[in-house]
């Protein structure tokens, strides 16, 4: 067994960077701060690559499956005899894959940010938050037990909160960060309750014990039945709620579009490549429990994923803010991954979906980060987010244009770019599992190609707009990461994922099913063509289409009024009909009772003052009556 203890450093380095920058950053020159942050991540990335290499290649004994290795573990908190919260490092295929993804994207984003955030007064703050996020995210993926995951899950949430609200003087950013935190927090409550139930049924937090197919969690089949499903299934569904919140699955997705208020590199890192896929990772992590212990829960995952993906894709077609389009695209793609997990089985051929999901996660991280960073470069150049304020930028920003185009083609699923492979396998898995889900995904593939190219054309083609100053290409510190990611987007598809990341650790035989691949490519192309027709040069077609599908368009444009529903629930129901009445009740009824007791006492005090009339004879009366009453009571009662 190889020693992986050094992997501990991968999350710890960003953590120390965070402390350093957070406490001392304001005294540093911005560039130094940026450099420290970047180099911290750089070391992490190198270590991650080394780990990946060792794990998958050099230390791997050919012919055997990949096992999970606990590289490091300490007890953090001792709860009961059985339950302890440990902190540690777990090395297995998916965590190693995530390490690579996170450190790569994060490193790129760090480098990019040096250019993007130049001149911002909170430069060091930005980098310290980025480091905090990297630390949390790495801690999350390396978690050895579900509770450690929860811990870092929360930390990820808060660093996301801090980064979304980075421009804290902007009310919309503040509102967005608040929304993101509260929505995910709500989801986390589900996660927490899920953990509680899971730990109660299984008596452990540890992933290795939990996911062991012969272990108690799976063998128990979940204990008591509640509303037609076992407690285990319920707990898994609740855990999935947590994942859905983080991964912006319907109906907990509403925070994601707003989260685009954050700086664009943040969107690229957190809200495209890493944090939002934490939900996928969570389900993948617990996959054996889902698949073997409670398939019911897995169905929920699949359907939520499927619905989210089409839901988001439709909305994406109508949005005009380029970052929001990308955000909905992200949601849609994560829906894919979820669905893929949902339709997967455990072990062997059945586990295709699992593999595909992780594969797609990997490729998606590359191309989506690329898209966001590209969008960032565009925004950096034109100072607006609105697609209507852009056009004809390909002349001014050639690097950005090319890389963006690569990413668009990738997401559309055109071979040989990476997403073709991952998406194809998802479709295959869905096809073998549930035809309806397959159909949905098939349509989504077309929609994806359509809205991505709509975006692409909107930005880079069409007429020049009135720009304040001539847009110019971003500096190299920004374009180099674009190119690196573009490289990743193109070639990641050739990684032998089916050998590396599978549900049971054993290699998986895949073969391209042409009956599915060809139609999917075709529908992707169809989407591209439609988009080309409609948006390459400005025509009246889009308006006409929108006019014919008026209601659908309007609904989709308003994101199916989900925000309004939430506003109604929070503002009206919680605020107006729960909190305010409770506060009123507290002030007037409870407190009123307490004051009332005092008031009654005072009142009585005044009411009986007539006894003390100052008249001697009345005193006599009272005296005599007192005696008489006592006599009556006691002589005749006893």
């Amino acid at each position: 067994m190889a020693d992986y203890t050094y992997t501990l450093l991968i999350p710890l380095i960003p953590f120390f960077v965070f402390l350093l920058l957070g406490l001392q950053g304001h005294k540093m020159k911005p560039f130094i701060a940026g450099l420290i942050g970047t180099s911290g991540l750089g070391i992490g990335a190198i270590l991650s690559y080394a780990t990946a290499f060792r794990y998958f290649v050099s230390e791997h004994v050919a012919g055997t499956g990949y096992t999970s290795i606990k590289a490091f573990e300490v007890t953090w908190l001792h709860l009961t005899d059985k339950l302890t919260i440990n902190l540690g490092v777990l090395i297995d295929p998916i965590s190693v894959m995530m390490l690579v993804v996170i450190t790569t994207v994060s490193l790129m984003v760090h480098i990019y940010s040096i250019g993007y955030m130049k001149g911002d007064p909170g430069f060091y703050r930005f980098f310290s938050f980025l480091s905090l996020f990297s630390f949390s995210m790495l801690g999350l993926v390396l978690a050895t037990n579900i509770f450690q995951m929860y811990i870092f899950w929360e930390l990820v949430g808060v660093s996301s909160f801090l980064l979304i609200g980075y421009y804290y003087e902007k009310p919309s950013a503040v509102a967005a960060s608040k929304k993101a935190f509260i929505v995910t927090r709500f989801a986390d409550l589900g996660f927490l309750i899920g953990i509680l139930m899971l730990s109660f049924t299984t008596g452990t937090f540890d992933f290795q014990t939990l996911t062991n197919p012969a272990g108690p969690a799976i063998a128990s089949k979940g204990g008591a039945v509640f509303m037609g499903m076992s407690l285990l299934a319920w707990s898994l569904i609740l855990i999935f709620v947590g994942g859905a919140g983080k991964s912006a699955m319907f109906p907990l997705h509403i925070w994601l579009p707003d989260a685009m208020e954050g700086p664009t590199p943040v969107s690229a890192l957190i809200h495209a490549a890493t944090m939002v896929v934490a939900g996928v990772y969570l389900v993948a992590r617990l996959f054996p429990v889902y698949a073997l212990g409670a398939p019911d829960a897995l169905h929920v995952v699949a359907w939520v994923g499927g619905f989210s993906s089409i839901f988001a894709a439709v909305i994406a077609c109508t949005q005009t803010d380029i970052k929001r389009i990308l955000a909905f695209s992200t949601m849609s793609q994560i829906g894919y991954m979820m669905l893929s997990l949902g339709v997967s089985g455990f072990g062997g051929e059945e586990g295709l979906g699992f593999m595909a999901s992780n594969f797609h996660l990997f490729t998606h991280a590359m191309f989506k980060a690329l898209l966001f960073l590209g969008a960032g470069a565009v925004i950096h150049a034109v100072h607006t987010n609105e697609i209507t304020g852009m056009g004809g930028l390909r002349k001014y920003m050639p690097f950005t244009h090319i890389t963006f185009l690569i990413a668009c083609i990738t997401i559309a699923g055109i071979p040989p770019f990476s997403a073709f492979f991952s998406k194809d396998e998802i479709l295959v898995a869905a096809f073998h599992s549930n035809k309806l889900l397959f159909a949905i995904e098939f349509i989504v593939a077309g929609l994806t190609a359509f809205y991505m190219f709509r975006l692409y054309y909107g930005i880079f083609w069409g007429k020049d707009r009135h720009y304040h100053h001539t847009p110019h290409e971003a500096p190299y510190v920004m374009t180099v990461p674009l190119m690196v990611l573009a490289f990743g987007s193109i070639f990641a598809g050739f990684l032998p994922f089916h050998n590396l990341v599978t549900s049971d650790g054993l290699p998986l035989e895949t073969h391209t099913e042409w009956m599915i691949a060809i139609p999917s490519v075709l529908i992707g192309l169809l989407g591209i063509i439609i988009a080309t027709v409609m948006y390459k040069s400005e025509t009246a077609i889009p308006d006409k289409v929108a006019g014919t599908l008026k209601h659908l368009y309007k609904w989709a444009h308003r994101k199916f009024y989900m925000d309004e529903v939430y506003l109604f629930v929070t503002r009206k129901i919680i605020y107006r009909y729960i909190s305010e009445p409770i506060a009123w009740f507290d002030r007037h009824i409870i407190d009123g009772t307490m004051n009332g007791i005092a008031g009654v006492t005072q009142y009585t005090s005044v009411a009986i003052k007539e006894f003390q009339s100052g008249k001697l004879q009345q005193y006599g009366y009272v005296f005599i009556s007192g005696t008489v009453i006592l006599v009556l009571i006691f002589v005749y009662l006893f």
Partner: protein
Amino acid sequence: MIQNIPLSYYLVISTLMFFIGIYGFLTRRNLITMLMSVELILNSVNINFVAFNRYLYPQQLQGHFFTLIVVAVAAAESAVAIAIIINIYRNFKSVDVENVDEMKY
């Protein structure tokens, strides 16, 4: 001769005096009269003591002594009370109890 009068007669008298005293105390407006009513009460007690002693416990003298002492104390009490009543008269220009209610509530 005394044997012909049962104890209860004395007791009835003394009880009547007691309650007349209380009644007087509660209804008379004049402070002096009130004082006299109190004396009635005390005298009813005296009758009680003497009667009990004579009828029930003739072999001892406790009741008689008690009576004597009560009489003496009552005298002292009246003296002080009347002194204060005079004082009241000086201050209030009246000995009506109704007027003596400066302090109340």
